[in-house]
């Protein structure tokens, strides 16, 4: 039944939906001339949706008879998602601006609108209390993502990325649906609570198979090994602002969803999923580290870096404790800040004609031509490598601490050892920037907004420990909502 309390609890989604529909009309009638206005209006919509989280959507409980959960965990993830989405809208106009090579290029008004629609899907994902909400949210997000990946349709690499993402994403959705139908068939319910009751009762083979399939489908969405194969190609081919989006917001949403499914729906099954998560985490850390070493394209490298980081975040989930979940959410927060910062730096990599460059070799000598940019990128790389005293170290420390707290000493030890592999390629970028013979200089002239975002991200990474009281209490409250 539609009751007003339920409607109030889905306020973020309602605000985003109304905003997206209105802006779609603006875009349809005014065309791409209004693209910048639509972009800023989209950001305002995201802010408005974020503000509603202060009210009932942040702590309201179940809405629509358990289909939707408005709790602290969902609110935490949504704040991250909306912020990351806003960042990927901010970065777009300059990237799509006309250049010498591509004079007809311009930001199209559908870009921010598709991101808004994807945000509705992601909000549903992190608020899901039922397998059906999970699936509809996931599809809403994925479908928008497929379109965004091939947004520069004249570019063959972008079209290829979209097609690859679509085909593999459809396969993963099929696997996920198969798992959901098994869970439904053997538990008699699609709600997380109902599945949890059935799993606590007796873990039958059918439930076990369903769980494995569901986790496989979700592992695809967070691009964890062995379901990561789409990530480098899609990240490389998609336009850089879209890659920024892929590497941040949907990752948070899919990770939040995985945590919620694992704890709320599959949790009572005696942590049967724990060994799966441990394997996926270890494989992601190792593969993400080793495969990144030979990369020459910076977007591909960051794709492997995201696989690597997802592995670390999963260590917190593997612990399965409130501290572990809090650590995972903190990790994703810090990861999003580092990723957005790095991608904002990468978007500045343009040759004299304004064409984007993506090779790592072109970064050589950046420390002489663009001191600020080189310093910022160095900070992000040091932080991604987990080198203290930067904030990336704190993220890794939290997940390892949670793993040790849950008695997973071996996992923590392996993670620490494997983070050295990751450090190698992050440091290689810094070495290229600071010690190699200078390559051709990049185009100068950067808008204030992008530099502000980079400076802000760098400041968070350097002085992040000042935020610790806020981050700790927020992530602890989020984790407490699941247990």
């Amino acid at each position, binding site marked *: *039944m*539609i009751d007003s309390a*339920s409607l109030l609890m*889905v306020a973020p989604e309602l605000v985003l*939906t109304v905003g997206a529909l209105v802006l*779609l009309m603006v875009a349809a009638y005014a065309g791409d001339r209004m693209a910048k206005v639509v972009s800023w209006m989209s950001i305002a919509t995201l802010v408005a949706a974020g503000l509603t989280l202060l009210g009932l959507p942040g702590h309201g409980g179940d*809405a*629509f*008879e358990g*289909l*939707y959960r408005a709790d602290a965990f969902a609110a935490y993830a949504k704040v991250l998602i909306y912020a990351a989405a806003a960042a990927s809208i901010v970065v777009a106009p300059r990237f799509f601006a006309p250049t010498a090579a591509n004079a007809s290029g311009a930001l*199209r008004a*559908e870009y921010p*609108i*598709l991101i808004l*629609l994807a945000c*509705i*899907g992601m909000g*549903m994902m992190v608020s899901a209390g039922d397998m*059906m*909400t999970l699936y*509809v*949210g996931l*599809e*809403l997000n994925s*479908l*928008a993502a*497929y*379109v965004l990946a*091939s*947004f520069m*349709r004249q570019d063959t690499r972008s079209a290829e990325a*979209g097609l690859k993402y679509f085909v593999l994403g459809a396969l993963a959705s099929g696997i996920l649906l198969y798992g959901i139908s098994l869970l439904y068939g053997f538990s*008699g*319910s699609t709600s997380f609570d109902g599945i949890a009751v059935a799993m606590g009762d007796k873990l039958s083979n059918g439930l076990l198979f369903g769980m494995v399939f569901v986790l496989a489908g979700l592992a695809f969405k967070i691009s964890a090994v062995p379901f990561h194969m789409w990530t480098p190609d899609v990240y490389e081919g998609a336009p850089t602002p879209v890659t920024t989006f892929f590497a941040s917001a949907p990752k948070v949403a899919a990770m939040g969803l995985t945590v919620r499914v694992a704890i709320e729906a599959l949790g009572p099954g005696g942590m049967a999923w724990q060994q799966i998560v441990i394997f996926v985490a270890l494989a992601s850390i190792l593969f993400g580290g080793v495969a990144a070493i030979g990369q020459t394209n910076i977007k591909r490298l960051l794709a492997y870096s995201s696989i690597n980081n997802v592995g670390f975040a999963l260590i917190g989930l593997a612990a399965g404790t409130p501290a572990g979940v809090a650590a995972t959410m903190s990790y994703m927060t810090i990861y999003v800040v580092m990723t957005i910062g790095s991608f904002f730096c990468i978007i500045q990599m343009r040759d004299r004609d304004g064409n984007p460059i993506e090779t790592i070799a072109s970064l050589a000598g950046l420390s002489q031509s663009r001191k600020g940019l080189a310093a910022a990128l160095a900070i992000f790389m040091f932080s991604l490598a987990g080198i203290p005293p930067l904030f990336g170290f704190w993220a890794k420390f939290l997940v390892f601490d949670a793993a040790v707290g849950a008695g997973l000493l071996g996992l923590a030890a392996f993670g620490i050892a494997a983070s050295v592999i990751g450090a190698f390629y992050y440091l290689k970028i810094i070495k290229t920037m600071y010690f190699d013979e200078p390559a051709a200089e990049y185009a100068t002239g950067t808008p204030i907004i992008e530099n502000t975002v980079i400076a802000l991200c760098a400041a968070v990474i350097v002085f992040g420990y000042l935020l610790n009281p806020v981050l700790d209490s927020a992530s602890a409250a989020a984790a407490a909502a699941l247990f």
Partner: protein
Amino acid sequence: MIHVLAFYLFATVVIASGAMTIFSRNPVHSVLWLILAFFNAAGLMILLGAEFIAMLLVIVYVGAVAVLFMFVVMMLDIDFAELRAGFVNYLPFGLAIAVILLAEIVLGVGIWSAGPVELAQRAAPATADVSNIQAIGALLYTRYIFLFEAAGLVLLVAMVGAIVLTHRARGGVRGQNIDKQNRRRPQDAVRNVNQPVGQGVEL
């Protein structure tokens, strides 16, 4: 008894035609096998008393697959003369499939009139006096309204996406401006000229 018979017939044909979908070397054959698999899955649904889902399977899947079939036929380089050449060879096989389908339709009607099977464990038992479509409608627009609306958004994204990826503004197209047409008055468009005889018309 008829239920058991029907179940094994439908289930066997679903699995067999599913396997043939994969193993056929000719894509057209694959699609045909797939249609057969869907028909039999619909039969299984009727066995369970889910007549609405059975109809959906036939209408949506078989209909959609028929369209897919058209695409396959259009896009692949298939020599139709060669396909027709084997008509007599394939006739017995085609007749066999036709007989199976006929038997299945008879069985389907039979189990439908015999009533659905009673499953030992059913999460949501079907009430006898409400038809499937009424039950789904009553839930879809009340309890699941949130998901229903969200599914609508998925379709909207699909539409926006299709337009974003394929639409291009073409020059030289004379679009219709209805407002301009309506504002046009006879005095703007019609002119009375008292034309002298033997002279050309000035336009």
